């Protein structure tokens, strides 16, 4: 837990001419914003790199950035099949919190939250991190008891968490219906004040720009088709833009982790499922915090554009189609309208699904594999966005030193053999 000497890797964009600031904004306004510099270079793959990260989402780009900034590995590349942040990074509900129950989870999620708190400054990119609080509500006696156990465990790990009564919830969120006779009555809740939201695209772009500044090649529209190895050592990757030689490969591809693992004949305990969300038409500010309900699989916040952002549960069957099944959001919207009656007359603007990599214990895998030089960072399931900086930070450390640090150690693939599972189904927010 102690990370007072946390190295944030804030070494990018030290040249004043390239930094974003009030002065650069004024300077560019004078030329009608026609002369903004490119945020990152267009890179074609070199024949060889010291390390390659597969997956240009938030986690992959963060991994590359910390590899370059903290570990000095600048001859590296990020390979992305589509466009940056086009997968789950751009398909989540942007909730950030660290109120998980077990010590191992406190380690990784709080590590991430501490990085979030300074991320805009470190990257010189406004990720719009807003600590508006995350309020989890409960709907039964049993949930209340489970909640107080979890809150005490969280507080023992030094993470802020406060229990609220229905009246206190109503005071904070006047639009919520706390009537005892609704289908899912509000019986209490707990609040992490340091939790909140961030702008998902900005996280990908901010990391990409800072990594690029340190010399990292960001290669988009390049699909990995094979992993080449020599005995037990990885030697490179086959891509749609040719072979790239590298002794270290970090796979950070969320829902497609099993597809990559199959290329290396490695087994993962992962099931790829669609996780759905939707937004309403934009309205004036009405909700200034995040409300979550585990029991009904509903989480709601209001974006800065004014849309109500609503997240639902996962579909019950495996899928790689980024859409999802209708009954899942239907169930969520029914509960949401019960809790927030004002939602009933809003129209839905967009709905989408992201393919999440669910793990049997609802905890991630940050691990070496039996193949030397091949690393996996996956299994984040329904909770990947919140951990983006922490995940990248510890994964970079794992790749650079070929050994997990104390935060990453419990998340080894070996835990499925030793039985040392980190069961976070209660804190994951969405059933896996």
């Amino acid at each position: 837990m102690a990370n007072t000497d946390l190295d944030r890797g804030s070494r990018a964009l030290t040249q004043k001419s390239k930094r974003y600031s009030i002065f650069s904004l004024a300077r560019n306004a004078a030329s009608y914003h026609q002369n903004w510099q490119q945020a990152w270079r267009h890179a074609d793959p070199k024949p060889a790199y010291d390390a390659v990260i597969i997956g240009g989402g938030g986690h992959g780009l963060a991994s590359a950035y910390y590899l370059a900034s903290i570990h000095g590995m600048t001859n590296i590349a990020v390979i992305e099949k589509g466009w940056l942040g086009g997968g789950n990074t751009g398909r989540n509900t942007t909730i950030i919190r660290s109120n998980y129950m077990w010590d191992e989870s406190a380690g990784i999620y709080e590590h991430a939250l501490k990085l979030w708190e300074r991320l805009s400054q470190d990257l010189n990119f406004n990720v719009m991190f807003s600590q508006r609080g995350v309020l989890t509500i409960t709907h039964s006696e049993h949930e209340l008891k489970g909640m107080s156990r979890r809150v005490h465990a969280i507080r023992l790990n030094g993470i802020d968490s406060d229990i609220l009564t229905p009246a206190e919830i109503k005071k904070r969120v006047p639009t919520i219906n706390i009537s005892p006779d609704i289908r899912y009555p509000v019986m209490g809740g707990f609040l992490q004040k340091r939790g909140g939201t961030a702008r998902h695209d900005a996280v990908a772009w901010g990391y990409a720009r800072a990594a690029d500044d340190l010399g990292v090649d960001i290669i988009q529209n390049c699909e990995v088709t094979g992993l080449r190895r020599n005995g037990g050592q990885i030697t490179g990757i086959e891509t749609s833009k040719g072979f790239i030689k590298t002794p270290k490969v970090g796979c950070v591809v969320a829902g497609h982790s099993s597809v990559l693992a199959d290329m290396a004949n490695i087994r993962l305990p992962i099931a790829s499922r669609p996780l759905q969300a939707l937004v309403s038409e934009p309205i004036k500010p009405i909700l200034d915090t995040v409300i979550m309900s585990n029991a009904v699989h509903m989480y709601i916040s209001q974006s800065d554009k004014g849309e109500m952002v609503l997240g639902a549960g996962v579909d019950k069957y495996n899928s790689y189609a980024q859409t999802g099944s209708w009954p899942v959001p239907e169930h969520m919207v029914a509960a949401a309208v019960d809790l927030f009656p004002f939602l009933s007359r809003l129209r839905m603007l967009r709905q989408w699904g992201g393919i999440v990599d669910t793990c049997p214990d609802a905890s991630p895998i940050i691990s070496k594999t039996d193949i030397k030089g091949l690393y996996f960072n996956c299994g984040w399931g329904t909770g990947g966005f919140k951990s983006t900086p922490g995940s990248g930070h510890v994964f970079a450390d794992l790749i650079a030193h070929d050994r997990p640090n104390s935060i990453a150690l419990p998340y080894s693939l070996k835990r499925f053999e030793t039985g040392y599972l980190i069961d976070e189904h209660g804190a994951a927010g969405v059933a896996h």
Partner: protein
Amino acid sequence: MLKINCPICGNRDETEFSCGGEAHIARPIADNKLTDTAFSEYLFMRDNPKGVFLERWCHTSGCRRWFNLARDTISHEIIEIYPMGQTPKTAKGKKAYQANWRRKSKAEAASKPAKRTVK
């Protein structure tokens, strides 16, 4: 929304069914003799293909019978529905069954009853 043709009740909406995950995972018989790695393959490791997937379903809100189903995880097309205890009959289903890494796993090899010689 899937429409699933239950072998007993006929075509129904997916909301009536529960998905039981990967089909054809045989429980090892002498599991005390398996290595932790092999047992972990049986217990936790899962086939998760992008393409044809063989899975078990139960008609929870209907006849409550289990059956197997071959489904494409990209298009959601249901290729075949076949009874428990049997393997797929269609070409795509057969291919998916053979392609599964489990067919070569130690855990599955240990799940087949040992041949006994009758004296």
